[in-house]
């Protein structure tokens, strides 16, 4: 088991790893069929140190915050290391958010420095939100075309200073990153993750999925996401493994990369995993009846041999035609960000490609439980990782209750939100808001959510209150957005939908014109944030003394309606 007990910070652990594995390849970056870059740990250090020095020269120091908004690439990791080396706090933001959402989070985080790439900067610069985020003093932009307008930013490639930077030590309890789990437009939820959170999570995860020189991780999930940050940066770097970045995520290039770079691990969201499944099934459909029968027989044989544990060598020999396109060295597909359907997990396991499904949330420092594959179970999210205490609160007669977690990986709190933090972390226990039950083997099974939110198959958390702004001044008396499962619990983690509860004006009817208006506004939202239907409610919404809607009370009242007839699809 990896021992990181001597380290106080991410920066200190990475600093040693860069020395220890200096000659090993740490990063490969490809764009379509072209390999753009291949860096050793020595090269990586040589790129990061001048950046760290330049940041220090402008006064960037311990505890200062720097944000990265970039697609997955070498410069993301180089910048992150420079920030940690200089004692900074990293604020990784989702490059898929709108520019105004990004500015809102930049302002909320208090970032002094922003590191981004040119196409994103072009959009950020054009957005009105820039004027509010006056805290951002230094902007570094990568890959700016010659003669392009930098709009007050500096070129990342030129932002280098000579001389060695000073390594700034940090303590285990200091904040290392502020990670936004969700919440733009409404109440940004910036999880303050400490150095200890990452060091402990790294030890726990690598005990199940070890990294070492020669291991190659394909980084597809955005690196701002807690999973990719851990298994696509910190984990592999600490152990001398290599990370492969692709500048385009078109399915055909992703498929090619598996074989070309002999990938060992990859993390995917359920949507992409299902897409891979569809692709394989379509390929099987084209086989002649004889070949199909032979394949089915081999799959049956593989299932029998791998009943108790994966046997990768054997599976690869038996089902070579399936494994070869994956490069023949794929050990595990890590799936995260959202719940995965058991039949998809089973499909891959039967082919000898283990899928490590688990359960986690940003607030818990990524993973809480992971399936250890001994034996493989498609129907659960696995057992708690080493160092995780998990309990079920107030279980009902069938044993189902809210999942609570305590461990050294739990965040220190939400940035600038003491009340929300106190509601979420009670006596050291993180209230996940998810409903679950342990089975006799100690595996956790999930049965839906207690909180008003959804998680999409792409791993996006959506809080209904964050999307209400788009329906503002809708010509109805009042409205409120809910997760359908919050009102009518279905005990499922898939196919979650959002709905718009409407209270019409006296005498008003739900006309085609109103439906069209709602539909038009809905289409302004990113596709994963859109509502699926409307529910009409004939009474005034319950409100607090300050006239805020009492969402939980309204949800209880809506729950009395029959979902089948009350839910009007858009």
């Amino acid at each position, binding site marked *: 088991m990896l021992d990181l007990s001597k380290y106080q910070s991410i920066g200190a652990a990475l600093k040693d790893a860069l020395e220890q594995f200096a000659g090993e390849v740490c990063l490969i970056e490809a764009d379509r069929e072209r390999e753009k870059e291949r860096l050793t740990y020595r090269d990586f250090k040589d790129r990061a140190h001048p950046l760290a020095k330049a940041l220090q020269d402008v006064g960037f120091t311990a505890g200062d915050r720097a944000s990265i908004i970039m697609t997955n690439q070498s410069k993301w990791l180089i910048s992150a290391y420079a920030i940690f080396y200089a004692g900074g706090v990293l604020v990784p933001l989702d490059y898929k958010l709108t520019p105004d959402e990004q500015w809102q989070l930049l302002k909320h985080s208090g970032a002094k420095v922003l590191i981004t790439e040119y196409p994103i900067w072009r959009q950020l610069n054009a957005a009105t939100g820039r004027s509010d985020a006056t805290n951002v003093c230094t902007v570094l932009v990568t890959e700016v075309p010659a003669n392009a307008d930098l709009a007050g930013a500096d070129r990342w490639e030129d932002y280098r200073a000579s001389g060695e930077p000073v390594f700034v030590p940090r303590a285990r309890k200091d904040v290392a990153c502020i990670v936004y789990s969700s919440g733009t437009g409404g109440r940004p939820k910036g999880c303050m993750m400490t150095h200890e959170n990452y060091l402990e999570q790294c030890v726990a995860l690598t005990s199940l999925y070890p990294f070492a020189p020669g291991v190659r991780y394909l980084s597809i999930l955005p690196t701002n996401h807690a999973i990719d940050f851990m298994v696509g940066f910190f984990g592999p770097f600490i152990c001398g493994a290599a990370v492969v970045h692709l500048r385009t995520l*078109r*399915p055909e290039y992703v498929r090619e990369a598996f074989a070309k770079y002999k990938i060992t691990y990859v993390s995917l969201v359920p949507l992409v995993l299902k897409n891979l499944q569809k692709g394989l099934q379509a390929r099987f459909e084209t086989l002649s009846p004889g070949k199909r029968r032979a394949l089915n027989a081999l799959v049956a044989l593989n299932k029998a041999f791998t009943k108790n544990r994966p046997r990768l060598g054997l599976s690869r020999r038996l089902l070579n035609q399936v494994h070869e396109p994956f490069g023949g060295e794929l050990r595990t597909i890590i799936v995260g960000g959202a719940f995965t359907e058991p039949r998809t997990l089973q499909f891959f396991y039967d082919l000898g490609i283990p899928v490590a499904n688990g359960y986690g949330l940003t607030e818990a420092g990524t993973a809480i439980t992971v399936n250890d594959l001994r034996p493989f179970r498609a129907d659960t999210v696995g057992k708690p990782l080493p160092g995780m205490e998990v309990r079920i609160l107030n279980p009902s007669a069938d044993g189902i209750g809210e999942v609570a977690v305590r461990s050294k990986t739990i965040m220190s709190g939400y940035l600038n939100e003491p009340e929300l933090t106190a509601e979420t972390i009670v006596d050291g226990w993180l209230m996940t808001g998810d409903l679950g039950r342990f089975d006799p083997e100690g595996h956790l099974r999930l049965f839906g959510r207690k909180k008003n939110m959804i998680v999409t198959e792409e791993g996006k958390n959506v809080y209904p209150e964050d999307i209400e702004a788009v329906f503002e001044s809708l010509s109805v008396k009042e409205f409120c957005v809910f997760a359908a499962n919050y009102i009518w619990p279905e005990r499922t983690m898939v196919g979650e939908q959002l709905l718009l509860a409407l209270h019409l004006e006296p005498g008003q009817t739900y006309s085609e014109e109103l439906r069209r208006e709602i539909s038009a506004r809905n*289409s302004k939202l990113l596709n994963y944030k859109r509502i699926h239907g409307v529910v009409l409610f004939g009474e005034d919404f319950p409100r607090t003394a300050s006239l805020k809607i009492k969402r939980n009370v309204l949800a209880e009242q809506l729950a009395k309606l029959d979902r089948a007839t009350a839910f009007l699809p858009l």
Partner: protein
Amino acid sequence: MRTLEQTTREVLDLASKHFNVPAGSLAPEDDFFKKLGIDSLQTLEMLSRLENHFGIELPDYEVQGVSDFRTLASRIQSRL
């Protein structure tokens, strides 16, 4: 050199072929997620088809936040 109108028409034709919907059933202002019932991954697949057709490289970020055919066509047009 194609006009934006031509490019838009070709985008609509290709999308209708790729997703097997009747030619002429798609309009420039249509939201392709909704109209075609596709997800972000399928959008990327469509993008590859469009790249091959127009002989350009369109970085993934160009479709970030784009959901209608007209905007998509204008992004392509700027690279022709």
